[in-house]
């Protein structure tokens, strides 16, 4: 069973990104949306978390990254998706868990 996790809070505001990483199983996907996209940026205290978590797929919602002006600061290897990609991720995984 593969799960899609959505995280919508900045890791500097809430611990839901950490909670998600602690419980997400190998092979699952974490999609960062809304203020959650800040977890995908480099040059800060959370940057290593994505880099050091190799068994989980990370995606970031492109329009939300653009709206915050951080599309040029995204961590290497993170996949950028649009809303169509968001829908595809929902369809490809068995269930969706929102970390609110």
């Amino acid at each position: 069973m593969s799960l899609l996790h959505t995280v919508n809070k900045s890791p500097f505001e809430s611990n839901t990104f950490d909670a998600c990483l602690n419980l997400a199983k190998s092979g699952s996907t974490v999609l960062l949306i809304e203020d959650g996209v800040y977890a995908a940026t480099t040059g800060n205290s959370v940057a290593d978390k994505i880099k050091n978590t190799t068994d989980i797929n990370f995606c970031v919602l492109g329009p939300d990254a653009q709206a915050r002006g951080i599309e040029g600061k995204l961590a290497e290897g993170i996949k950028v998706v649009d809303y169509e990609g968001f829908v595809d991720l929902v369809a490809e995984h068995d269930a969706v868990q929102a970390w609110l």
Partner: protein
Amino acid sequence: MKIALQINEGPYQHQAADSAIQFTKAALAKGHEIFRVFFYHDGVNNATRLAIPPQDDRNITAEWVALQKEHNLDLVVCIAAAQRRGLIDEDEMNRQGKDANNISEGFRISGLGQLIEAGIEADRLVVFGA
């Protein structure tokens, strides 16, 4: 694929309603069925027809209503969450002896069973929230 949505956050509070509308549009464009949109907690505020956002801002309730009309969406407002927050339809206005009602066309008021049913009947339940 049948997709159901749950929205826990009011419009203009942060971004959940906007995200949900964009997601709904993308899912419909890709040929998926939106089984139901369930408005819960402060999400019930999406359903007021009395909101007057500035003209140069988006009108979230109007966007839901337009989507509902075009795609015959089932927009369901949780009755307990709605009554706490003063969102009532005409039937509830009469039943409770109130002097006004404010639920927009396109939305219907019902209970939590509708969320449970959406969780069972739809292939996926996607939550947008506070």
